C-alpha cells in the first residue's frame, strides 16, 4: 500500500509525467534529448538554489535572500576577475566562503534574536542586493579563458542533446542534498526542527548549530548557484535574478514539501524545478502564448499544491482523531 507520506511526491511525479506527455503529444519534437538537456542547463542555477531552500523550508523557515545572493555572487566574481589576476577557482572558493558565512550569520540572528526568519532574511536580501549595487551597477562581462573551458565542457548524447557542466552540477547538488537530508544526523535534525521547535529541543536537537547550519547551506548553495549563473550568462549584473527566491519557493512547494516544515523530499524539489521548466519550454514551443502565462500557470500550480497539502493534513488529522477516539482539536 502506498504510504500517505509519499503521496505528495507521487503526485508531483505524476504531474511531471502527465505534463511531459501532454507536451510530447502537442509537440512531438519536445521529446528529444535536446529539450531535456536544455531543461537541465536552463534551470541549473534555480535548481541548486532550490536545494538550499528545501532545507530551509523543511526546517519551518524561509529564506528570501537567495536571489540577491546569486546576483551578488555574479557581480563579485565579475569584478574580482576584472580587477585582479587571481584564478577563477580561487575566486569561487572565496565567494562560497563569503556566502556561506552570510547565510550562517542570518541563521545566528534568527536563532539568537528569536526573530521570524522572514524578516531577518528580508534584511539579508536588501543587504546582499545593496552590496551588489555598491560593487557595480552595470553589467560586467566575464572574459576569462577558464570560463570558456568550463562552458565548453559537455557530454553530447547520441541524438544531439548537449548535457553541459552546469546541469551536471545541479544533478550532483540534488544527489548530495538527498543524502544529507535522509541519511545524516543533520538531516534528521532539520526534519525534527520543522516538526516543532519545542519538541526538537526536548529531543536534544542542537537548535543553534542546526539553525545556523541550515541557513549556511542555503547561503552557500545560493553562492554556488551564483557561480553557475555567471557561467550561464558570462556576466555579473546586480539587477539579475530578482525574484528567484519566489521561484525557488514555488518549486519546493510544487515538489510536495510542506510549507509548515518537517515534511517533504529533496527529490520532489527536483521534479518541481522540471515542471516549472517544462511550462516555460511549452510556452516557447507554442509561440502564440505570451511569457506572462508562465507566471499565471506557476501561480495556479502553487495554489493547487497548497490545497492538496491542506487536504492531506486534514485527512491525516481526521484519521488520527478517529484512531485515538478523542475529539481534541489539533
Amino acid at each position, binding site marked *: 500500500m502506498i504510504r500517505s507520506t509519499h503521496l505528495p511526491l507521487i503526485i508531483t511525479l505524476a504531474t511531471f509525467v502527465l505534463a511531459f506527455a501532454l507536451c510530447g503529444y502537442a509537440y512531438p519534437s519536445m521529446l528529444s534529448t535536446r529539450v531535456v538537456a536544455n531543461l537541465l542547463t536552463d534551470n541549473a542555477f534555480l535548481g541548486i538554489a532550490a536545494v538550499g531552500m528545501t532545507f530551509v523550508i523543511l526546517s519551518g523557515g524561509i529564506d528570501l535572500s537567495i536571489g540577491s545572493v546569486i546576483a551578488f555572487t555574479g557581480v563579485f566574481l565579475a569584478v574580482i576577475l576584472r580587477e585582479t589576476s587571481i584564478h577563477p577557482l580561487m575566486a569561487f572558493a572565496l565567494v562560497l566562503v563569503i556566502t556561506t558565512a552570510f547565510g550562517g550569520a542570518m541563521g545566528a540572528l534568527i536563532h539568537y534574536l528569536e526573530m521570524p526568519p522572514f*524578516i531577518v532574511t528580508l*534584511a539579508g536580501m*536588501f543587504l546582499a542586493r*545593496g552590496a551588489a549595487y555598491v560593487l557595480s*551597477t552595470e553589467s560586467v562581462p566575464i572574459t576569462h579563458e577558464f570560463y570558456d573551458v568550463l562552458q565548453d565542457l559537455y557530454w553530447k548524447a547520441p541524438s544531439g542533446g548537449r548535457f553541459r557542466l552546469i546541469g551536471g552540477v545541479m544533478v550532483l547538488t540534488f544527489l548530495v542534498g538527498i543524502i544529507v537530508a535522509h541519511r545524516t544526523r543533520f538531516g534528521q535534525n532539520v526534519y525534527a526542527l520543522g516538526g516543532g521547535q*519545542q519538541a526538537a529541543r526536548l529531543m536534544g536537537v542542537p537548535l543553534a548549530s542546526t539553525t545556523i547550519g541550515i541557513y549556511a547551506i542555503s547561503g552557500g548553495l545560493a553562492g554556488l548557484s551564483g557561480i553557475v549563473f555567471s557561467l550561464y550568462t558570462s556576466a555579473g549584473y546586480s539587477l539579475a535574478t530578482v525574484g528567484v527566491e*519566489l521561484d525557488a519557493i514555488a518549486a519546493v512547494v510544487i515538489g510536495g514539501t510542506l510549507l509548515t516544515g518537517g515534511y517533504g523530499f529533496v527529490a520532489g524539489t527536483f521534479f518541481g524545478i522540471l515542471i516549472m521548466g517544462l511550462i516555460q519550454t511549452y510556452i516557447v514551443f507554442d509561440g502564440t502564448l*505570451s511569457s506572462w502565462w508562465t507566471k499565471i500557470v506557476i*501561480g495556479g500550480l*502553487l495554489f493547487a499544491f497548497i490545497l492538496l497539502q491542506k487536504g492531506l493534513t486534514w485527512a491525516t488529522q481526521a484519521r488520527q482523531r478517529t484512531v485515538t477516539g478523542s475529539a481534541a482539536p489539533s
Partner: protein
Amino acid sequence: MLMPGPKSSVLSRITPQLIILGVALLLNVIVLPDFFHIDFRNGRMFGNLIDVLNRGAPVALLAIGMTLVIATRGIDLSVGAVMAISGAVAASMVVDGHGWGTALLAALATGGLCGMWNGVLVAVLRIQPIVATLVLMVAGRGIAQLITEGKILTFMNEGLIHLGAGTIAGVPTPILIWIVLGVLMMLAVRRTALGMLIESIGINERSSRLAGINSRVLLICVYLVSGFCAALAGVIVAADIKGADANNAGLWLELDAILAVVIGGNSLLGGRFSILASLIGALIIQSVNSVILLSGLPPEFNLVIKALLILAILVIQSPRISYLLYMLRATEPRQDPGQSKPKEEAAQ
C-alpha cells in the same frame, strides 16, 4: 513589545518613531539647508518636504492595510502585485472610454476582490498568510500583464491623472488621499471595538474565537482592506506616470510597506498595533530615501542603509534582548524566564 502599559497616551507610543523621523529630517536639513522651504507657485505647493509626503503616498497607503494584517499575526506579500493589477484595470478602463470614476471604482473593486481571495485562503482554508499571499504575488503580475496585453498602457484621462499628479487646494492629491484614509481608518479601529478585536486575533486566535469573536469574517475583512489600500496605491502610481506598467508598478513595495510597519514598532508576531506609527514609519523610509538622494550619495547605498535599519530594529524588537533589558532594569529578577515563550507555543 516596545510599548509601555496600555494606559500610556498615543504620544508616548509614537515617541521613538518621532525621534527617528526627527533625526532623518535633521539629516535632510544638514544636507540641504532650505529643506523645509515650501513654495507656492501656479496654485501648487512645491518643496522637498511636500515631495517626501507625496512620494511616500504609496508606501503609506500600503502600510495602513499592512498594519491591520500584521496585527492579526499575518502578512500580505501580494500588495505589490495587487497594485499592478488595479493600475492595469484603471488604465484599461479609461482607455476603453469609461469615465475616471468608473475606472477608479473598478480598480478598487478589483483590489478588494484580490484581498478577499487572500482572506478566504487565510481564514477559511487556514493556509499560512505568507504562503497564501505568495500565490497572488507570483501570479498577480502575470494577470496584470494579461490586462495590459504586455504593453505599458498609457492614457490621457484628466480625471484619473488628477488622482496622482493633481492638486486640491494647492496640496498634491496623493497626500490628501493617504492622510484622509489614514484618519478614517484610525477612527474606525479606535472609536469602535474593531481594533481591539483585531488585536485579540493576533494575540491568540483560538481563544478569541472561543470568546465569541467571528475571527473568520474579521480576517477576511482585514485582507480586503489591505487589497483596497493596495488598489488605491496602484491607481495613484499609474496616474502619476500616466500609464500602467505591469512589470514595475509596486515592485518590492510590499517589502517597504512591511518595513514601515516594523519601523512603526508593530510586532510581526501580531497583537497591539498603531496605524499612526506605521504611517510615521512610511515617512521615515521616504525621508531616508530623500537624504540619500539629496546628499548625492549613490542610490546604490539605499538598500544597504535599509538593511542596516531593519537589523537595528530587529535587535531592539527581539524578545530576548527586551528580556535582557528587563532583567538589567529589574532590581529583583523574579520574572518567569518563559516570558516570551507562550507566543511561540501558540504558533505550533
